């Protein structure tokens, strides 16, 4: 990124906002992994570390009333869409103070107040639902945009293809964001995918498809800007493929034997958070003091959120039976 300085640089406020988000994701991930390793908390955890710039770029552009659909590896997307940290952490730990009263868990975080509408644990199934949200906005005549995040592996499931086709023929205001981290569970991209890039698949549905370096927040920002503007102005859907890498394998605790160590080391050496920080500093966009202040504030917010979550009780037994239906149906 230092070498290939983008032609256009977003304004300072945007650069700072992206750094805030990148930092929030990076530090939250770090703290959460420590919490799990130390045994103070238990959860399945699909670390998004390595993919933080993608969410940060979209997060800097989306409005609170835009819709976001994401998946089990979604912590970065949740934070970037503005889900409050306290409720988010509490949900991850299954506490009643969580976004979903502890009944959804990390794979199902929902927070409509921030526009985070669905988090799904089923690969690829967020795409058809995102179409529905986009359709609702279009019917209502609002200019809300829907984005849906998914992995490279998801581009091989039927729902992806049904959804891209429908979005194209209905000209829906939706952005399909494929976070290509090179693996689906333990299977390498090339072993499972016929197209050399996921973005090529857009051509089959006559929608624009673009591949971008997802570890470069500025490049991703401009790609996201174009796609979001297209959707907002009635120009229909876009498939954005953001190239990235997951540092911690599929699920936290993964032995990662299927990832060549030198490949992982290279990715970690090029840590996108560190790279972005250095770039901001070198080019004088933000001073060391400004960067450090963002980091300190973020850490304080995370520590507060963790303490809040750990102090919160689990949902009471009655919660087992509520929210199955709109009215409480007494279980048989």
């Amino acid at each position: 990124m230092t070498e290939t300085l983008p032609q256009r640089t977003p304004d300072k406020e945007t650069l700072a906002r992206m750094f805030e988000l990148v930092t929030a994701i990076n530090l939250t991930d770090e703290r959460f992994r420590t919490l799990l390793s130390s045994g103070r908390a238990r959860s399945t955890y699909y670390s998004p570390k390595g993919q933080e710039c993608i969410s940060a770029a979209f997060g800097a552009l989306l409005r609170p009333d835009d819709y976001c659909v994401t998946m089990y590896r979604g912590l970065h997307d949740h934070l970037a869409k503005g889900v409050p940290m306290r409720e988010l952490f509490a949900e991850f730990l299954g506490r009643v103070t969580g976004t979903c009263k502890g009944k959804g868990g990390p794979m199902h975080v929902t927070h409509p107040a921030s526009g985070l509408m669905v988090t799904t644990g089923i690969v690829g199934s967020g795409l058809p639902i995102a179409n529905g949200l986009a359709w609702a906005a279009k019917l209502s005549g609002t200019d809300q945009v829907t984005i849906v995040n998914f992995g490279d592996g998801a581009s091989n499931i039927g729902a992806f293809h049904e959804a891209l086709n429908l979005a194209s023929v209905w000209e829906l205001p939706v952005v399909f964001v494929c976070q290509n981290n090179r693996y689906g569970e333990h299977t390498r991209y090339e072993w499972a995918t016929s197209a050399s890039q996921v973005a090529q698949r857009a051509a089959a549905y006559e929608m624009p498809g673009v591949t971008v370096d997802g570890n470069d927040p500025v490049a991703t920002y401009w790609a996201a800007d174009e796609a979001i503007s297209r959707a907002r102005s009635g120009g229909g859907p876009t498939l954005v493929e953001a190239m990235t890498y997951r540092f911690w394998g599929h699920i936290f605790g993964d032995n990662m034997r299927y990832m060549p160590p030198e490949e992982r080391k290279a990715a970690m050496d090029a840590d996108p958070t560190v790279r972005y920080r250095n770039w901001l500093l070198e080019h004088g966009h933000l001073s060391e003091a400004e960067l450090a202040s963002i980091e300190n504030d973020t850490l304080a917010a995370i520590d507060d959120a963790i303490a809040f979550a750990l102090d919160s009780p689990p949902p009471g037994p009655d919660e087992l039976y509520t929210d199955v239906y709109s009215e409480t149906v007494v279980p048989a």
Partner: protein
Amino acid sequence: MTDEVKVAKMTTAQAIHDALDLALAKDPKVLLFGEDVSDPSGGGVFHISEGLSTKYGEHRVRSTPISEQAIVGAAIGAAIGGYRPIAEIMFMDFFAVAMDQISNHAAKLRYMSGGQTGVPITIRTAAGAGMQFGAQHSEMLEAWVTHIPGLKVVVASNPADCKGLLTAAIFDDDPVVVIEPTLDYWVSGPVPEGEHVVPIGKASTARPGSDVTLITYGREVKFALEAAETLAGEGISVEVLDLRTLVPMDERAVLESVARTRRAVVVHQAVRRGGLGAEISALIHENLFGELEGPVVRVAGPNTPIPYAAELESLFVVDSADMVKGVRKAVQQTR
């Protein structure tokens, strides 16, 4: 002052059309979509939605690609986005293709979100054997959906209830699967004009009786009434209970009736193994074991796919003769 409800004779297909028309007129948030439903694509394979896209616009009554996951997914998303979509899945057998959206999303999003995102969708679907459509266009798969918490499931036995239950489903705040017995589309009967609501969760006594309760739903109700008539000639008084809603089931109505008659026969077209009859039977045994004259009798389809040949298909489908046999068996059991 008396509110006189006018009644018209119409087919089930017309009654459903009427319910859709009234719902679309009443609430601009109601949407209808599925394969071939708009007028340029024929107004639906059974012509049920004929005229509706012309009347309400193709933005509200819309034909879709042949993409069952995309159809149900779009319904779910639009519902979370503030609409009341009615999605049509042509035949219930095709639920297999959309089951992820139905089971993992429509049914569970309210719960997983702690009540924040309800999914007020209606899924209409045709089901049932008897037209030689073969094994993939004939199945009653109510057991698939009644097993999933979060879904409501209704099946009507006559045109009036078809209209009333569909109307209730559309304006219900939960996902409702409306199973429409395919063969009944052409059956006519009296239907109240104007808005007609049959509340979800209420069974109806199709025929009162005192010796045995015959519990069923959908198309089988007609045959149950025939069976009851035949058995009346033998001096057996059969009460026919039409469940109408499978989830949430009117358990009180079931137990109240069986507590009186002390004998029950449960009937459905779907295959016996793992069918809803097993659930109803267990409900009765768990609650009324000591009061029963004998075990609950099930009359249900054989555990086979649905055959094509007319001779075999009619063997598959339970009819009034099967029900008569089932009732006789139940009545012979006495403590």
